[in-house]
């Protein structure tokens, strides 16, 4: 059975290789091939899952050693896979949701002449993510980690002819690289501390080293996680990443990429358990991002960017839960899975809306679309209910548990984190309701579009072919797009309940992550009640502001906070002023220094040697008599010197 693990990775990797090297011949079948291989990977995953269920809880870990990768004196890295319950969960999520997104993309990317390549990149993304979750050591994980970064770079910048897309892709890769720096330092620390970086030995040996080392490793892992999972302060790439085609956003936000950070922290649980300080920082980062993302999500008019803010915030929940230690690991992963369903559904829904609206992304130019796109409306609506935590839907179960766990942390910390999580839930309800109302309800604002601001930038390039000034004709998307949305909607509705009945999910993951109930100062019912209250407040506020009053087509100036939130709370401005400008000045002055100073010293030496020899050359004037003078002079000096020596 364990020999099948490599097949999980091999299928999409093969797809990527064939599609990217195959050339134009494969244009007609490329998308089918890509989808088929993604599906094949899912089938293999399902087979392995069935096999795993058939075995006892403690015998479920499979491992497969492929070959010795970097064997150097004292340093051993292997290409070896490990499949346990945690990896299995991710494998099913990645391949399952990934395959659905592949199917969706067949329709969505139909008119793009580079569709084959798009599918090649999608397959590469899946393969990298699978390597990441299946690796049995941190270095191989690093390969997947950067592979995901590469795939996201290629996909975000898929429409490279748009400078904004190319810039966004570069930004994503660079910000991720900063995080990767953390991961590589963490691995180096592990190597010097434990002499190895394979999961098994490292996680077993955490007890044998000092807390300081563990804290250092933990913080470096957190830096890595911040990069990949778009947590403060490395979150700035996520919003810009919306430049990519919508299925890519769905893939990045639901199944791959941003979940990697959560995986890393949960996987390294043993390290964090031994380093309470690092855990505290993790929870703080999670809590800050949770609010940050939510606030940004409230202010964006671009439907994809609003959803991006929401992702940031939801991942913040997961990171917060992961920082709580054994109380929260299980819930972090559970929320991750349910989030995978509803966020993928929401993004695909957003893509479907854009598909029907000439690729318009500004929600202020939507409105009343429920009549024209019933399937999209229903699936998006179910995703909406799931994300705000409507009782009985997926998000309700997973988010509620995280809020409970935050309170269960105990002490002042617990109260603060719990309250932040509750506040986050209220804001989530507010901005998601806003998205929902602005898109599907209210007046049909797109009818007046031509008079509005036609120069509004549009994200999707297909707009060029459609003609931008035409009034859109909203229509339902083709079946290849709606079916994945329906499947995901099912997941959004039922996954949470299914996992929570009899604490199935907890028992499933417990052997890997361990679980601790903690001592909540509040009863579960109180927390649920409080969540419901803030939920209703959030929805009501949004309804009052956007449902009762007409939505202006051009955005009002807004308060200071709104304006700041529209600009991602000024983080980009900060980056621009400090990093970009500062960096430009630094490199420019260094170029100057290199040219004038370092090279100047060399050229100066050369010039002074040249000058000296020029002066010496003047002595060779060609007059025989002046040579004779120097000869006589020389002889005289020699004689004088000899006489002097004698005398002394």
């Amino acid at each position, binding site marked *: 059975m364990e020999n099948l693990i490599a097949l999980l990775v091999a299928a999409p990797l093969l797809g990527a290789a064939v599609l990217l090297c195959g050339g134009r011949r494969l244009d007609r079948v490329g998308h089918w091939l890509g989808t088929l291989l993604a599906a094949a990977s899912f089938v293999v995953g399902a087979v392995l899952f069935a096999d795993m269920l058939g075995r006892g809880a403690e015998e479920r870990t499979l491992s497969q050693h492929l070959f010795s990768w970097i064997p150097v004196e004292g340093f051993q890295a292997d290409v070896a896979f490990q499949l346990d319950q945690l990896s299995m969960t991710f494998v099913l999520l990645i391949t399952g949701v990934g395959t659905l997104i592949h199917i969706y993309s067949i329709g969505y990317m139909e008119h793009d002449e580079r569709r084959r390549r798009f599918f090649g990149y999608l397959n590469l993304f899946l393969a990298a993510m699978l390597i990441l979750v299946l690796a049995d050591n941190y270095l191989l994980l690093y390969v997947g980690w950067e592979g995901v970064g590469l795939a996201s770079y290629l996909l975000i910048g898929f429409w490279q002819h748009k400078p904004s897309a190319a810039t966004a892709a570069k930004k994503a890769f660079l910000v991720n690289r900063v995080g990767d720096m953390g991961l590589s330092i963490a691995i180096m620390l592990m190597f010097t501390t434990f002499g190895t970086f394979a999961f098994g030995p490292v996680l077993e040996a955490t007890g044998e*080293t000092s807390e300081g080392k563990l804290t250092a490793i933990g913080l470096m892992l957190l830096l890595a996680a911040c990069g990949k999972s778009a947590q403060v302060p490395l979150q700035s790439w996520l919003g810009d990443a919306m430049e990519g085609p919508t299925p890519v956003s769905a893939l990045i936000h639901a199944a791959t990429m941003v979940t990697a950070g959560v995986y890393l922290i949960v996987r390294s649980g043993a390290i964090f358990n031994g380093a309470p300080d690092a855990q505290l920082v993790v929870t703080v980062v999670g809590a800050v991002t949770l609010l940050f993302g939510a606030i940004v999500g409230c202010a964006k008019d671009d439907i994809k960017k609003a959803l991006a803010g929401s992702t940031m915030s939801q991942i913040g929940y997961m990171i917060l839960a992961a920082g709580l230690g054994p109380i929260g690991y299980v819930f972090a992963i559970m929320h991750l899975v349910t989030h995978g369903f509803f966020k993928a559904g929401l993004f695909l829904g957003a893509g479907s809306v854009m598909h029907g609206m000439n690729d318009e992304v500004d929600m202020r130019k939507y409105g009343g679309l429920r009549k024209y796109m019933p399937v999209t409306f229903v699936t998006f609506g179910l995703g909406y209910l799931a994300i705000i935590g409507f009782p009985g839907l997926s998000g309700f179960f997973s988010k509620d548990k995280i809020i409970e766990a935050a309170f269960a942390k105990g002490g002042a910390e617990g109260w603060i984190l719990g309250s932040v999580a509750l506040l986050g839930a209220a804001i989530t309800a507010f901005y998601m309701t806003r998205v929902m109302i602005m898109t599907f309800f209210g007046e049909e604002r797109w009818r007046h579009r031509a008079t509005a601001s036609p120069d509004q930038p549009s994200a999707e390039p297909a707009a060029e072919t459609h003609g931008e000034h035409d009034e859109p004709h909203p229509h339902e998307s083709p079946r290849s797009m709606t079916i994945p949305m329906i499947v995901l909607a099912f997941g959004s509705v039922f996954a949470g309940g299914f996992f929570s009945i009899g604490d199935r999910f907890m028992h499933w993951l417990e052997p890997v992550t361990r679980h601790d109930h903690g001592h909540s100062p509040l009863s579960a019912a109180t927390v649920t009640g409080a969540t419901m209250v803030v939920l209703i407040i959030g929805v009501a506020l949004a309804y009052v502001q956007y449902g009762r009053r007409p939505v202006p087509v051009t955005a009002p100036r807004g308060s200071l906070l709104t304006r700041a939130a529209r600009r991602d709370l000024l983080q980009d401005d900060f980056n621009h002023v400090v990093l970009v400008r500062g960096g430009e000045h630094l*490199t420019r002055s260094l170029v100057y220094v290199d040219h004038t100073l370092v090279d100047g010293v060399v050229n100066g030496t050369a010039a002074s040697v040249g000058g000296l020899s020029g002066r010496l050359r003047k002595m060779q004037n060609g007059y025989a008599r002046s040579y004779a003078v120097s000869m006589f002079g020389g002889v005289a000096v020699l004689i004088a010197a000899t006489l002097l020596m004698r005398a002394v």
Partner: protein
Amino acid sequence: MSFPLLTATAVLPAVGAIATAAVPAARRTAAKWLALLVSLATLALAVTVLVRFDPDGARYQLTESRSWIAEFGVRYELGVDGIGVALIALTALLIPFIVLAGWHDADPLETKSSRWRPTQGFFALILAVEAMVIISFAATDVFLFYIFFEAMLIPMYFLIGGFGDRAHSGTDENASAQRSYAAVKFLLYNLVGGLIMLAAVIGLYVVAGNFSLQEITEARANGTLEMATSTERWLFLGFFFAFAVKAPLWPLHTWLPNAMGESTAPVAVLITAVVDKVGTFAMLRFCLGLFPEASKWATPVILVLALISIVYGALLAVGQRDIKRLVAYASISHFGFIILGIFAMTSQGQSGATLYMVNHGLSTAALMLVAGFLISRRGSRLIADYGGVQKVAPVLAGTFLIGGLATLSLPGLAPFVSEFLVLVGAFARYPVVGIIATIGIVLAALYTLVLYQRTMTGPVKPEVSAMPDLRARELLVVAPLIALLIGLGVYPKPLTDLVNPAVKHTMSDVQQKDPKPDVEAAK
């Protein structure tokens, strides 16, 4: 005595060089084919060396020894360890690609104003450089090494000064002036280094009485050859200075951007991927082998210089406007990594540094040669003159991206393996150094992606709209390099197996042991 395989590997390109130069002026194409065949035959010989070499056998293998200048104890001694074999293989591998990539670089120009450029000479000089580099990698006699280390400058000087890049922004005279400036700068820098080394070589003879690397190393190891501390340090500095110029290490680097910028892309690859490797190789073999104590003494300063090279080179690469100069500064950053690995004095660092030499050769060759193809299409080296190339020439853009990704050490490609080993090796002994060096990986991403973004993405500029994609010959150059980059990235074991025993010997030369992990040390 068995067949002198190493001599044959070096002599073949030398003979080939003479034969190529002797081809009549009218038969240009014949000269090209001859050069290509000779370089391929040399590759075959190098592969034989690789096969015949037993990594777990004696330290130096395939040894040859003949008396040469008996009065001064100079011997013609050749022999290779794993590091030498790897680098000889790299050299022999890259030359056919360089020849193939430079196929049209030395064709005579149609315009009258330019000089006539003899094709035969170009290819003959490349082969001559190959021969000298191979001897340098194989020489175990210090004097023999020195001669070829210096002699290499002559053909390189003519290659840089005589066959410049046609894509020059200025006028012909301007181009020619800058070219000769670059060539003279290259020559003077390296001559100064070489002369200081010559003094040290003579000093070594005075102290040791012979030039044999093996004998001196052994005598040093078992204590029969005592050296005064100050003598050893002066000699070490003499050797190191020459190698640091060649490598090049900050602040002795300024000749490289000029030389690489002004020469044609294949020659630039020859400089940075082949010739400069002799410098780092010699640090590993001669500095550490002959002067272990002085090497340890100088380590702190060298590590700081290496760190400066890494960060400074990368920052300057970000600030460049010229594609080739950008690659040159990136190389300076990479040489910083190599030197860091060598002087970290850990097994991981030194294995990593050796692997780095090979992988940097491959990755720079891939990036630089594709950049050369790009430049030859548009006739400009300025980044700002490009834009949107990937739309019109997707294969070119794709290979350029892979070359770039290799340069930024993406995991899965060969340079990652070596860079990570260097970082780990440095970190194990000097954590702060290791951490500062990781900044290099972020900056590498910056300059590579900025280069890619500005040249390949965005709206198609009118000047590049008619740009043809890669031709068959060009694809033949790039594809194997990329295949090797991926292959050695996924499965570097053959290379590490080759290098590990040699590194073990070097580590015992300098009498250093790897630091133990905390957990084990505690037990």
